[in-house]
């Protein structure tokens, strides 16, 4: 007896949320096994991961800090995906942004803050967009699939960083492969006193809201949506499909790059090899879990930030590996995405009849 999937036209409102909750449950079950193996108690671990960060000011603000780069990459991926441009290169674009920002930050001595701070973000955005240019051109002009070209540039960006840090940007004092600290004026001020939450968060939220506004209210947003939903119909309506894809790809790269700049200017203040812990890939998780909505991605980014912080404290307290948070996030992605698809279909178990 094989299941057949029949598209349902009617969706009771409760089906979606119910299936998502089921997905979350499956996530818990799967990760529990792993947590138990590592010698921890799943209930305790989940409490650390989800509840604990919200119980202290420090936990909350660290979660927000952790979510900051995800706000950028989530928006970057969402806007690309909505145009039908499969940008899996947000990681490389973010790293390119960190390179541009570091360069700017190292040369920003003497600039006043109100110039240097926007300047460093701009440097990041331009670098990110530049990193996105080649795959975008290949797609727009030659019709070459952007999935592989954007993916391949991710390790290249990391190699460039490693090369710079082992070479010209090696720390002049310590000799370690991390860069000198950037100019004071380019560092982003903290916006929540006595925490590490910095101005980058504000920029990230502004950019995300800007994307939201663009998509729903601007003519370019409608063009983007049409191209993403039905490129053939868009072409018939006289829309320039290739130009839209190119522009979207560059904007997406720019946003990711700005996220990199935000990390440099707001938290790290120098470039290191481990500057990104997969922010670009996590951006895909953020965008997908938020079903490509921008307001939703803010919430999802926060949730993942909480999980990140929580799993770190879980690892200290319970000696389970800190990578458990990544496991939770990726299982969540897979189960929720499956749930979102299942909700659209009615499963028919009968033999060949509809």
């Amino acid at each position: 007896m094989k299941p057949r999937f029949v598209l349902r036209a009617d969706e009771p409102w409760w089906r979606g949320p119910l299936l998502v909750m089921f997905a979350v449950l499956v996530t818990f079950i799967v990760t529990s096994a792993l947590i138990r193996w590592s010698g921890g108690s799943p209930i305790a671990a989940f409490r650390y991961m989800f509840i604990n960060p919200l119980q202290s000011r420090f936990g909350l603000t660290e979660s927000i800090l952790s979510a900051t780069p995800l706000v950028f990459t989530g928006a970057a991926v969402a806007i690309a995906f909505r145009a039908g441009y499969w940008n899996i290169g947000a990681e490389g674009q973010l790293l390119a942004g960190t390179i541009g920002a570091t360069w700017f930050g190292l040369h920003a001595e003497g600039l006043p803050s109100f110039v240097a701070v926007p300047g460093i973000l701009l440097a990041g955005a331009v670098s990110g967009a530049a990193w996105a240019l080649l795959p975008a051109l290949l797609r727009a002009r030659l019709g070459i699939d952007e999935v592989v070209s954007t993916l391949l540039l991710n390790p290249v960006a990391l190699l460039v960083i490693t090369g710079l840090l082992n070479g010209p940007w090696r720390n002049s004092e310590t000799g370690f492969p991390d860069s000198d600290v950037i100019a004071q004026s380019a560092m982003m001020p903290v916006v929540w006193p006595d925490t590490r939450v910095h101005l980058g968060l504000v920029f990230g939220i502004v950019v995300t809201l800007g994307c939201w506004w663009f998509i729903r209210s601007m003519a370019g947003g409608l063009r983007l949506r049409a191209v993403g939903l039905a490129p053939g119909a868009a072409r018939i309506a006289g829309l320039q499909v290739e130009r839209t894809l190119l522009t979207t790809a560059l904007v997406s790269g720019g946003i990711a790059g700005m996220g990199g700049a935000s990390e440099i200017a707001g938290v790290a203040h120098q470039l290191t090899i481990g500057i990104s812990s997969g922010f670009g890939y996590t951006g895909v998780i953020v965008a997908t879990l938020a079903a490509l909505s921008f307001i939703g991605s803010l919430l999802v980014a926060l949730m993942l930030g909480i999980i990140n912080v929580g799993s770190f404290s879980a690892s200290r307290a319970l000696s389970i590996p800190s990578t458990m948070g990544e496991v939770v996030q990726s299982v969540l992605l897979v189960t929720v995405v499956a749930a979102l698809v299942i909700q659209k279909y009615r499963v028919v178990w009968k033999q060949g009849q509809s």
Partner: protein
Amino acid sequence: MSSATPSVLLREIRKSYGVTVALDGVTLELVPGEIHALLGENGAGKTTLMKTLFGLTQPDSGRIEVDGNATVIKSPRDARAAGIGMVTQHFSLVKTMTVAENLALSEARLVSVDLAKARRTAVDAAERYGFEVPADVVVAELPVALQQRAEILKALAAGCKYLILDEPTAVLGPKDVDSLLGVIERLRDQESMSIVLISHKMKEIERVADRVSVLRRGAVVASTAARGMTTKELIALMVGGDAGESVARPVSSINDDAPVALALRGVSVKRSHGGLEDITFEVRAGEILGIAGVSGNGQSELVEVLSGTLSVDEGQVEVGGSHLADVTPPSLLAAGVGMLGEDRHAAAVHNLPVVENLVLDQLQSVTRRGHLDRSAMAERCDVAIRQFEIKATPQQHLGTLSGGNMQKVLLARLFGRSPKAAIVSQPTRGLDVSSTRYVRSLIADARASGTAVVLVSEDLDEVLELANRIAVMYRGRVVGILDAHEVTRERLGEMMAGVLV
């Protein structure tokens, strides 16, 4: 109860897609040793009927009886098991594999593939039916005629006794048509096969058909023995009505002072098969030029040229008297030429609401400083909904609308901007009676407000009802442009069949 003579009977087949009735209680009988031609315009239900027989779709009601026994055909496999085979317009061959591999596909085991058997089948067929198919050539590299032979071979190899051929000669040149018809005759004579031939080509039907049935709007309007019928008589059957009558046209006469809105001068598109040759015509403001013709005589190419998706090799397109150098969708729209294509699903963005689909091709007019003027859009949408009687709400996704309403939205988009010229292709295909009537009145209204309309339609009634002048296309050329009130159905039919005076 088992009948003595084998046959396939389709009894009272009904099929609706939502509110559109595709088949309205069709009864048809197929008998061995007979070539049964199925006539009718696109959208009349011929293909739907045959898809039902071949298991590609299920009827809402009615039965299929094979040799007198009610048979349920739920899939092509059931059809083949019942001895029914079909060669569709879109070949079901795997283009990147060879003919032999395609033939061997259904019998392929895990490791071994009996290509030798497939090759033998091909050789057999060459001997028995006189058509050769090179077995070891990749399908994509074969000329279309041979691809079709491979498709037929696939059906024969499955041992079918009833073979459905859906417009097989549409893609063939004269010599290949000849050999195909010869093959069909041989199949009938040597193997006593029962063959259903869906076709528009009168000459071919005249040559081979034993029986002919005409479908119009989902019902059989005529079914008679065809042996000895002339093309003229066949055309009369197909177009219906009294072929000789000259119909009074409810159209106003053209104002000769009206400016020429759209013109084609010497337009040619060179293709190995099909294409356009030296197309020249003018359409004035406030006039409908109907393009009539049997499907496959260049109308699609003409529409593609006029919509900017096919580039011309010779000749030029003029809008408002001036030559349009760059014929692309954006430049045509900018010049005031709009289009309604024959595939509304290709032009509709299903997951966007009606209000947004309505302005998609004219965003500049509702954009202020980059922002969408939502209130202007809402106003336009309300006007469109009222004026075009669209049964939908502005926020409804276009994909949830019925075919008729979707068409009205696209027409509202087209005519709402009062274009200089509009190309309308098969506007009422697949629509129910009331939608059809309404859409036609919309087109007439557009003319009344000064738009020059090019109406491309295979529905002769439609062309006759709406057009001021009628251009008939045959084999990629315009064989004549007649004034509507001078034309008779008979004359039109003759021109459509290539009978020139």
